[in-house]
């Protein structure tokens, strides 16, 4: 490959790569600016540029790549799964359940989506697949009431981890966000420290709206960590870089398929390479 000068045109090309990975204009510009520092107008190998681009993205993501710690002496450790419709909450619970079971933990699932047709049946199948007990009520029942029952059952049975599913909701729907707040209030009645983790699922195909999702779910539900799903497609999920720069929320896992094993720890390096088009 021939060397090229790192000039305005090249910077624009790099910015375009980032924009097409959904980083958004501001984050893309901030990263290419940092990249150009000390390198502007110098000759550079084409492959080297991508490597540096990847490094710069990795620097932003590195601080948020933090595993989910379920060994904090809670009994049970309560995890609440929240997010916009169809982003992968129920499936991620199924995958987590499998992971925990393989680590020798006892897991209980709570079918807190009492709204969507067959959401309860969907979670029950994940329970069967992964050997976890499922606490479920009827569709149409009160979600907070179900969460309360599940908390009680989990305490009585002495399970290690309780994973609570919730109905999908758009963050701009106040009444649905209020309902989520109520679910959390009720959980706290049985354990003031719970939920110990509130995980927001983000769909990698989602664009700039994911920033709003993080902000509002964060405010209402006290999100403690993120999982990005559907990274097995062509979407790069670059909005996560903007989110990392702004919110410093831990990213625990990525979803890479529909199967029970398709959950991987979040790696800043791998994620950044994919965005830079290296992987």
């Amino acid at each position, binding site marked *: 490959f021939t060397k090229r000068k790192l000039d305005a045109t090249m910077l624009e090309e790099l910015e*375009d790569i980032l*924009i*097409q*990975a*959904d980083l*958004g*204009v501001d984050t893309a510009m901030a990263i290419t600016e940092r990249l150009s520092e000390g390198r502007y107008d110098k000759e550079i190998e084409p492959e080297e540029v991508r490597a540096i681009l990847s490094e710069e993205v990795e620097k932003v993501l590195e601080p948020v790549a933090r595993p989910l710690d379920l060994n904090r002496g809670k009994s049970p450790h309560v995890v609440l799964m929240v997010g*916009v*419709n*169809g*982003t*992968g909450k129920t499936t991620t619970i*199924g995958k987590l359940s499998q992971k925990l079971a393989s680590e020798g933990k006892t897991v209980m699932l709570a079918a807190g989506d009492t*709204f*969507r*047709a*067959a*959401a309860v*049946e*969907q979670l*029950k*199948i*994940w329970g069967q697949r992964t050997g976890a007990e499922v606490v479920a009520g009827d*569709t149409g029942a009160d979600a907070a009431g179900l969460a309360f029952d599940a908390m009680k059952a989990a305490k009585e049975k002495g399970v290690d981890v309780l994973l609570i599913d919730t109905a*999908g909701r*758009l*963050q*701009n*729907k106040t009444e649905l966000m209020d309902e989520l707040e109520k679910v959390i209030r009720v959980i706290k009645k049985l354990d003031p420290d719970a939920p110990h983790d509130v995980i927001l699922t983000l*769909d*990698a*195909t*989602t*664009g*700039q*709206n*994911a*920033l*709003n999702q993080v902000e509002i779910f964060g405010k209402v539900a006290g999100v403690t960590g993120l999982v990005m799903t*559907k990274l*097995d*497609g*062509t*979407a*790069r999920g670059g*909005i996560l870089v903007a989110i990392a720069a702004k919110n410093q929320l831990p990213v625990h896992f990525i979803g890479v398929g*529909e199967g029970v094993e398709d959950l991987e720890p979040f790696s800043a390096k791998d994620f950044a390479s994919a965005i830079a088009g290296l992987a």
Partner: protein
Amino acid sequence: MFESLSDRLSGIFDKLTGRGALSENDVNEALREIRRALIEADVALPVVRSFTDKVRNRAVGAEVVKSVTPGQMVVKIVHDQLIEMLGAESQGVDLNAAAPVAIMMVGLQGSGKTTTTAKIARRLTQRDKRKVLMASLDTRRPAAQEQLKVLGEQNDVDSLPIIEGQGPVEIAKRAMTAAKLGGYDVVLLDTAGRIHIDEPLMAEMAEVKAAADPHEIILVADALTGQDAVNLAKNFDERVGITGIALTRMDGDGRGGAALSMQAVTGKPVKLIGTGEKSDALEDFHPKRIADRILGM
């Protein structure tokens, strides 16, 4: 959180008021803001480029009429161009074929196919007095077939009885036979979600198409989709030849730029808009509304 395009452009053009025609320089400066606004609204970059080229052509040399400022003038040009690219007013699903008319729903995982299937079925039944049969070809996602069955019961629409162990192509054939025998007008085929680069699943989708010969193939896509909209729309269209797009979750606060992206790369119209989780939350597509939304107006 987004500054509307009018505000941004008026900032740029404040210094220009009182001049006659827009110069190339004025327009270039404005185009940078337009580009940024469109990207923030999730319009895919290649589409942004062709869009701004068109706007440049229209705007350079345009006379600023007395009653408007240059900023408003450019916003109007952008708005008009958006509406032109977004195409005609709602066309709705086309049932102009021999009964039973098959409509196949395709899309990524979780985009809203099953919900939209039930919404269309409900509308065709209640508003258009058609006899509708729904069938779930999703043998993969846990309880997917059950989901469609429940939605059928909730909306008084028949759904094909579930037979364990049948594959998607078999189910499609069974649905078409049942529809012929049962005198149904329309058959809605809900398919499993698939990632557009998953070769075996994309091939399976093409097989279903061959078996059912659908009159409409609706790509169901999330209004919150980002830059990937062009890739997914292109791949689904190349693989099965979609006839239209249903845009879901328009009740969110996303800017909906994906609508423009998908329409631009496929040339296929947005036919329907999903505006909620309930089965009656289905609306016709109006280009002006999407244009306003993309521009934050």
